[in-house]
């Protein structure tokens, strides 16, 4: 997945931002917290997983998603989001 494909979608950015903040979450909770509907959340998560940015673990029927720490793009995204948030906080001060 190209960088513009990740960042051109508001939903994907919201999901990535959420997973940076709270490391592990299930699909319903991701959908609830990002304000996306369940099907859209699954769609975005599948796309992000295909790109290697996120990964999941299954416990029975429950799938828990988190950022894929083994993926260098994922780490770069994490650094970007964290840096962005820090800069925002500094500007607010």
């Amino acid at each position, binding site marked *: 997945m190209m960088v513009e494909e990740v960042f051109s979608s508001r939903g994907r950015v919201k999901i990535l931002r959420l997973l940076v903040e*709270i490391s592990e979450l*299930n699909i319903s*909770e991701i959908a609830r917290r990002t304000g996306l509907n369940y099907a859209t959340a699954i769609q975005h998560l599948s796309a992000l997983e295909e790109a290697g940015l996120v990964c999941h*673990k299954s*416990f*029975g*029927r*429950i799938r828990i998603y988190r950022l894929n720490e083994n993926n260098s793009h994922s780490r770069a995204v994490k650094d970007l989001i964290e840096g962005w948030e820090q800069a925002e906080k500094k500007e607010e001060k």
Partner: protein
Amino acid sequence: MLILIFTFLIYVFSFKLTENHKSTDNKYSETPLRRKKMASYFTVFKDESKLDINYLPPSLSHREPQFNLLTRFFQFATESPGKMAQRALIVGKVGTGKTALAKIFGLKLMQTAQEKGINLHYVHVNCRERKGSLFLILQQVILDFYPHFPKRGYSSEELLQMLLQVLDEKDIFVLLALDELEALIQNEGADTLYKLTRMHESRLKSPQRLSLICILRELDCLDALDESTRSTLQRNIIFLEEYTKNQLRDILSTRVMLAFRNGVVDEEVKDLVAEQAEKEGGNARYAIELLWRAGKYADASGLREVTADCVRRASSSVYPTVQKDAVFSLELHEKLFLLGLARRFKQTSATYITMGEAEEAYNIVCEEYGEKPRRHTQLWKYVNNLSASDVIRAKVSEGGVRGKTTLIGLPYVPADELERELSRRLKA
């Protein structure tokens, strides 16, 4: 001229009044009342948190043999983890140190495991607080490892499998203490405990990751279990006898040193508290609670030491620990409902009030606390729960009341005491 004389007289009179007022003020400052007021800033306590129900002492006096026995039972956990799982029972009356023993042991075991590089966790769950539901108990354990694990959408059997999967994945060993096991047996029946004790049987090649410590007051409640579960559980039993007066005095001495200023509690007072607690079934928790309350009476009376009279006054106001525990673990609306009851019983001399009156009182309390009141069926469940925990007494009306209604009584706890305790907890 007349006006001038009149003004002069008023001036002289008001001056005298001020003088009088000042002298009364001075006199007042010398009164015992003022002295008492000044003294009320003095407190006999050094650190009253050491008398809190949740305070865990670094070691438990007079329970060394039992501690050593637990260490033997769970030795494998730090020597050959995963090779086996163990189950132990701790049995003893209220205030005999069951919970403290399990917690102190659990924390020590965790520490030893950590030193050896073993990922062992001690998880303490109060079954009554979890409404005796296996689902809620397992959920609490799993949330320790996955704080955002979904809270709905699966059965307790699935959750048990998920827990084992989580433990496998994170390579964790768990020592799970099920406090107040009676609640789990009453609510879920024998099958649940059977599942818990035998869950490793279907996992022959996998490491055994979950060991159990079951804590209960009486062995009788295990009669409800089938023979195989009982035999699995009853292999390792640790009985905690009631504390004797001397043992209670030892415990009190340690707590006095930690919680009170030097020299404010003398030996005779400790003796008196120990004696009272021995009569209450060797209950150390009662002894500590009584000591704390006596300290509070001393503070309120502006005394510089805890006297025998403070203990006597305190003992008449401490209600049995069983109910106190039950009140402690209630959920918000149960507390609000109970607060409404306590307030209604303060106003009336009747032994029982009707469910309708109780609901009315509860609605007022909900309004005060800005909470949306629960409906009748939920309140009826609360009444059943509270009655089962011996906090209230509920019975169906017989004659003299139109139709059938539930009558609620508060025979075990003084209403004003209960109100104070609940208000304090709700504010906290």
